[in-house]
């Protein structure tokens, strides 16, 4: 990504993907991507990266962790 325009637009990509970029920046990015394959790839794969992480299953507590926590906190009698 050596081109100066690419570097200039790189900092605004997260705002663009989050829908927080100004209309002016959005238009500039779209114009740039139409002629810059590398930037289009970066935007598409960055968007996909964010989307994959948002759908990643949440880690669950190990078995017995809740019971041990309640015991440490002296709350076992209140465990539901």
């Amino acid at each position: 990504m050596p081109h100066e325009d690419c570097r200039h637009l790189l900092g605004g990509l997260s705002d663009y993907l989050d829908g927080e970029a100004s209309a002016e920046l959005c238009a500039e990015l779209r114009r740039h991507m139409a002629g810059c394959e590398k930037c289009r790839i970066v935007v598409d794969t960055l968007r996909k990266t964010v989307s994959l992480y948002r759908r990643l299953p949440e880690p669950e507590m190990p078995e017995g962790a809740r019971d041990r926590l309640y015991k440490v906190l002296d709350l076992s009698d209140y465990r539901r």
Partner: protein
Amino acid sequence: MSELDSDRNLLERIRRGDKAACNECVQRHAPGIYRLAVRLVRDPSEAEDVMQETFLNAFKAIDRFDGRSELRTWLYRIAYNAAMMRFRKKRPEFVSIDSSEDPDDAIPAPRRFLDWSSRAEDELQRAELRAELEKAIGELPEKLRAVFVLRELEGLSTDETATTLGVTIEAVKTRLHRARLWLRESLTGYFQHYVTQE
């Protein structure tokens, strides 16, 4: 009653020494605290210790909580500090790597340009990709990881993330962007591996 109102109510009851309120607080916030801890320390057993330490410290210090932030944000902050203490004791060399690279420096330019965006569509079903995603989080520099986990995975707002970590809103935005680019680069390397095998 919103969660915020409900947390305020809970806070008052915990301050009065109401154990049922402590129980409600744990029920409500332990899963989030555990998720944050395990993604910071990368070890389920250590994460469990961090979770226990968080609630023990929080209940001890409840009178010092000024209520300017949400209860959840305050608990995340305690958990983050506890995780970092353990992390630094265990792996001091990691801290030095992180501190040598300022997370608020200029955004690094992407280096890998493979378009894998359509390949990954249904691949989240694969345990291997899920493991790769988790591994990549683990390889993020500590400060970028904390922002990414809180903001992207735990769904805290930019303000809440800044409060939790004690940094500026601008730092949160820059670190989140850097973390996303870092992870994109890492996942591109993962998918590149398959392309070269085909």
